[in-house]
């Protein structure tokens, strides 16, 4: 039996309700908060006052003006986008060969290999970051090894901990599975006859990859890129723990506004900008993905 149209609509009701309550409404509240004043003890001041029969709205554009007063916030946004892009590109470079290898391996090995890819999810996110802190620590084996090598060439020792490098390495590590899984899902569906046909028609291994496999995998690349780019853009735990002052990202400032400075309105302004950036990224990715997937 064909589902009737009201039945289809009924089915979309739960997710729609969920998104409305937990995404749309908070976003509107946040947008509204960005136009309000800070309360005396942090939080938000009342947005209207009723004084002797006249109603006054206590709303302001000050918070938004503050965003443009110095270039520090915009530069931080720019830097965060740069980090997110760099992480995405590195995830593609590392994840693509891995996904391709899994997709081309014998069917009976694939499940095991995929399991290994998602294995890190079985331990807590913070625990894994602390593990990286140990690896990067000045007394750690890795730092020792690098510094003794640098010493041989007469160069000054470096510190990995609390650096942009440490942040990027950890961001890539944490988000790599989000790139590998959609890529694998795409690559696994490729028709091997197309590669045979391309080879038959004179394409070398390299040409076969760039003219067949790569263009057909672009929807997977875009899907993976969105899944990596957006969470990285809003990431604060990793730069908090590994970044020091050097590797700080925009989400750290947002967290600071809400938790330490208790300046909710300005925190809301920054959040709104971040949300808009993320939505733009999704739309761009979806557009390219659709074009490539036709």
């Amino acid at each position: 039996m064909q589902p009737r149209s009201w039945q289809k609509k009924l089915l979309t009701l739960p997710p729609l309700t969920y998104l409305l309550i937990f995404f749309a409404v908070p976003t509107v509240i946040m947008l509204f908060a960005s136009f309000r004043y800070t309360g005396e003890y942090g939080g938000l001041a009342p947005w209207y006052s009723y004084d002797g029969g006249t109603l006054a709205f206590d709303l302001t554009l000050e918070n938004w003006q503050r965003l443009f007063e110095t270039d520090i916030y915009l530069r931080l946004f720019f830097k965060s986008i740069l980090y997110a892009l760099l992480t995405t590109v590195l995830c593609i470079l590392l994840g693509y060969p891995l996904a391709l290898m899994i997709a081309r391996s014998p069917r009976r090995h694939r499940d095991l290999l995929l399991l290994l890819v998602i294995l890190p999810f079985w331990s807590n996110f913070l625990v894994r970051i602390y593990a990286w802190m140990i690896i990067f620590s000045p007394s750690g084996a890795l730092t020792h090894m690098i510094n003794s090598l640098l010493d041989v060439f007469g160069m000054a020792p470096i510190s990995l901990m609390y650096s942009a490098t440490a942040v990027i390495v950890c961001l890539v590590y944490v988000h790599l599975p989000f790139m590998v899984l959609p890529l694998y899902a795409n690559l696994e569906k490729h028709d091997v006859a197309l590669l045979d046909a391309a080879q038959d028609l004179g394409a070398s291994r390299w040409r076969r990859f760039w003219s067949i496999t790569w263009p057909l995998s672009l929807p997977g690349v875009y899907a993976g890129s969105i899944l990596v780019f957006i969470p990285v853009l809003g990431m604060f735990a990793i730069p908090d723990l590994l970044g020091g002052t050097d590797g700080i990202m925009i989400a750290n400032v947002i967290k600071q506004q809400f938790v330490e400075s208790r300046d909710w309105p300005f925190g809301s302004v920054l959040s709104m900008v971040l949300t808009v950036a993320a939505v733009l990224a999704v739309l761009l990715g979806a557009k390219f993905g659709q074009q490539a997937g036709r």
Partner: protein
Amino acid sequence: MLEIKEVSRYFDSFTALDRVSLDIAAGEFFTLLGPSGCGKTTLLRLIAGFDQPDGGDILLDGKSIIAVPPERRPLHTIFQNYALFPHMTVADNIAFPLRMVGCSKEEIEHRVAEALDDVSLPDKGKHYPDALSGGQKQRIAIARALVNRPRLLLLDEPLSALDAKLREQMQLELIKLQSEIGITFVYVTHDQGEALALSHRIAVMNRGTIAQIDEPSRLYGFPNSRFVADFIGHCNLLAGKVEQVLDNRVVVALEGLGQVQVILPTDASIEAGMACTLTLRPEKIRISSNLTQDEGEAHFKGVVHDMLYLGDVTVYKVELANGMLLEALLANSTSGRARFFEVADQVEVAWGFDAGHLVMD
């Protein structure tokens, strides 16, 4: 032009090809025919280069091509599901082999337009393969494979995905195309009707070996084994024993039926006492309620067991004295009349001494 010499291929303990030898002439439409698992597709993949033989050699114009990778062999393959690149337009698909050899832009444009004309789809260049029908995809696949004039075209069951009407039309087009461009075709199919209709010569394959190579009409008329007789067309197989070898005839005792005369086959040495099978095509059998026996004719009584009305002909299965069912055809030349006999009718069947072909077991 293409020589296959003693080629073998084993998969673990399974013998896919057992010392197969073939010689295909330039300009020939050659078909590899056989049931699934007979090794025909394996042989095609070896010729294309996707697989390596475990023994033997494959020569193209006298030179071994075993060590040449598929992308450098001067031959192309038409795949079963066409394998058109879904992310490229039809024109880009056809241009693909030209780009691989670095043709100039103008030449590519010119030759793609020409190729589209050749397959009568001149205005489909900007379409994507998704937007084409099965027959159109087939033609584009052919245009793509022929655009840079290969020495040889391999076709792997290319018509199997099409419906019967379209298949017949494509068969005619393939014959025309092949004779026009004169490129050697090696065609793989399990459909004996298709093989008979298309080919100059057919190699019937069975269990990794070649059972018989011949022209279609000779394969049909003079099969060299029970397998070939049974596989090509419909055939009655009557087991018997050679009684006596005459000048140009053989007297055969058919099991449970009696003696019949058969024309002496030229392709086998025959002595009295040998076990043999008489292969008899249904259309060579006369069937009537009342027959006069001519000289040298086999003549038996039987009962109509069942029948199959096919429109142009009706197939009668006649039960003979030994219990075997003999298939005979009668053309339905009278409109509106589906049958000449009813089930359980007493009938007589007869065939001339030159109607059947004798194969040794």
